[in-house]
């Protein structure tokens, strides 16, 4: 075979490979474009609105004011408080649900009668709608008059308390932990079941106690799963809105940034410009918190070397 082409053999092969790659990717393009349009357009608009002075309840025209909304945000005492609540709420809910999730996963990672049934029961909180979860906890658990918690405390002689108004932030955290523990449990269970049983047997033969096996072998093995749990948990929990709305309605000390953003815009103040700027800050904060969480976790587990 003689080739009339002036291209070398190598170049011909490369051109063919390129063509082949293009042929395979082109059909994916519409989906990619659609995804970009749908997911990124609102973000780009928010970004744009964040630079505007725009009050929905006046007829004043929109006005480009640069970073003023952002600098104002940090001056705003209410925003700073909401940011602090966001951090507290997210960090504590994520950490607690990861810890409880891991503990429950350890219990479920062994064979016992009714295992499937118990596992399903434990997952149910995650399947409950956030609004429903909030209402159930508020009216059945925390309620001053009819709440289960107060009833139990009364039985042992402790007086009833107004849980929601006394501890607005922590009641919300409790409900969040209740809902998110099953999710973390699922991730950790997947991690535990991915651990080779012979590694655990080797540890036994090597004379490791149960706690040494857990801290030196199982926990390092779970690290990527913990990271995943923390990452997903942070991303979702920084956006919590429904629980706050139903339980405290944003009562003192329980307004996080998303709730605050809503109050500033559609809720009451119609300050679309600054609300947009705040929501951009939430995105940045989510990234920062997730990163920080991962760092801390990696640091904790990195130190485990003989």
């Amino acid at each position, binding site marked *: 075979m003689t080739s009339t082409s002036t291209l070398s053999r190598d170049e011909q092969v490369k051109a063919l490979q390129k063509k082949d790659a293009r042929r395979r990717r082109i059909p994916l393009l519409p989906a990619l474009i659609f995804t970009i349009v749908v997911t990124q357009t609102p973000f780009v608009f928010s970004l744009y609105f964040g630079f505007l002075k725009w009050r929905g309840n006046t007829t004043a025209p929109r006005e480009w004011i640069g970073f003023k909304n952002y600098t104002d945000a940090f001056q705003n005492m209410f925003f700073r408080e909401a940011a602090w609540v966001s951090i507290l709420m997210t960090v504590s809910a994520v950490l607690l649900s990861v810890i409880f999730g891991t503990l429950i996963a350890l219990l479920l990672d062994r064979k016992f009668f009714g295992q499937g049934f118990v596992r399903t029961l434990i997952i149910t909180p995650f399947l409950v709608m956030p609004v429903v979860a909030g209402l159930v906890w508020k009216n059945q658990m925390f309620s001053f008059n009819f709440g289960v918690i107060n009833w139990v405390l009364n039985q042992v002689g402790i007086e009833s308390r107004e849980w929601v108004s006394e501890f607005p932030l922590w009641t919300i955290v409790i409900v969040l932990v209740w809902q998110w523990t099953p999710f973390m449990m699922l991730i950790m269970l997947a991690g535990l079941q991915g651990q080779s049983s012979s*590694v655990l*047997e*080797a540890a*036994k033969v090597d004379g490791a106690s149960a706690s040494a096996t857990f801290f030196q072998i199982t926990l390092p093995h779970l690290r990527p799963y913990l990271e995943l749990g923390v990452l997903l948990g942070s991303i979702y929990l920084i956006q919590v809105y429904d629980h706050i709305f139903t339980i405290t309605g944003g009562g003192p000390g329980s307004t996080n940034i998303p709730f605050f953003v809503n109050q500033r815009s559609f809720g009451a103040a119609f300050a679309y410009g600054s609300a947009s700027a705040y929501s951009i800050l939430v995105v940045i904060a989510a990234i920062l918190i997730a990163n920080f969480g991962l760092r801390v976790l990696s640091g904790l587990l990195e130190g485990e070397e*003989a």
Partner: protein
Amino acid sequence: MAEVKYEAASRIYPGTTLAAVNKLDLDIADGELLVLVGPSGSGKSTALRMLAGLEFVDQGSIYINGKDVTLSPPQDRDIAMVFQNYALYPQMSVASNMAFALKQQGIPKAERMERVKEAAKILDLEPYLDRKPKNLSGGQRQRVAMGRAIVREPQVFLMDEPLSNLDAKLRVQTRTELVDLQARLGVTTVYVTHDQVEAMTMGHRVAVLDHGVLQQVDTPRRLYSHPANLFVAGFIGSPAMNLIEVDRQGDQLIVGAKPIPLPDDVASDLRASDSKRFVVGVRPEHLALAEDGSPSTVVVVEELGSDAFVHVEMPHEGGSTMVVVRVDGETSIERGHTLNFDVNGPVHIFDAKSGVRLGSDPSM
């Protein structure tokens, strides 16, 4: 340094009635390398795991160095185990993997590192001490698993098919190294394998198991020359022993044209037996070309260079059987030839029904 003793030890898995290991009696001497061999499902791994304490002993007892360890957890047995998939701790470096057991014993770090270095030197692992297992080749991982066992200086080494994940060439090489290492350290070792070649080449003695029952324990040579029953006869040796099933003709067994010459003890056992069918076992090297042998048709010839294995259809009383004959590699034989073969070495006679060997007990 220790001897190991299984005393009627049985393991019956929950939910089953058949014992995975059935009343195993086995004495392993100090410093011995004993190989447990058998096909899959024979209970060899279970027997090893019972000794390790990873498997419950339902009946009987196990002793290490005279001490009853039947109910002791693995931690208290002072044993080291090498697993088939090595079971290295994936998040730890090679050095930490090897030091792990010492760390659990509370040995100070300086001494730990010293012992790890020593073991690493023996196993040529020194350049890899800081690596993670995933950055090692299969052979290196195998050596780390060995290293993890030897730094412990345990009473007994347990090895569960440690070479089966290596490629063929490395397996043969590592086999030799392992035998040498075991001899140098002089630690009692129980080695499990499904590969009879590995068993024969490595073991001081070999214990053959089938369906949870110990068939025979003996030196590799005795196992080969005096298999105690039909199972051992068929399992040990490659290619396998030719087993020809025939009906007795009075007090004779006829394969081909002539009766098989039987030693006195076998002949007297045959006379005493009231069974009808027997199995004549002949190793491929104990058949040879002979002028007055029985004519057989060549079906396949496997050339190995030094030898050739000739598969022939050998007629006998009431049918014919495929048998393998080992001939010199220089002999030119082709498919379709008809040649005369005869027995020119020891034969093994087994009762077809019970599988028991006729003649004097090989363990005597």
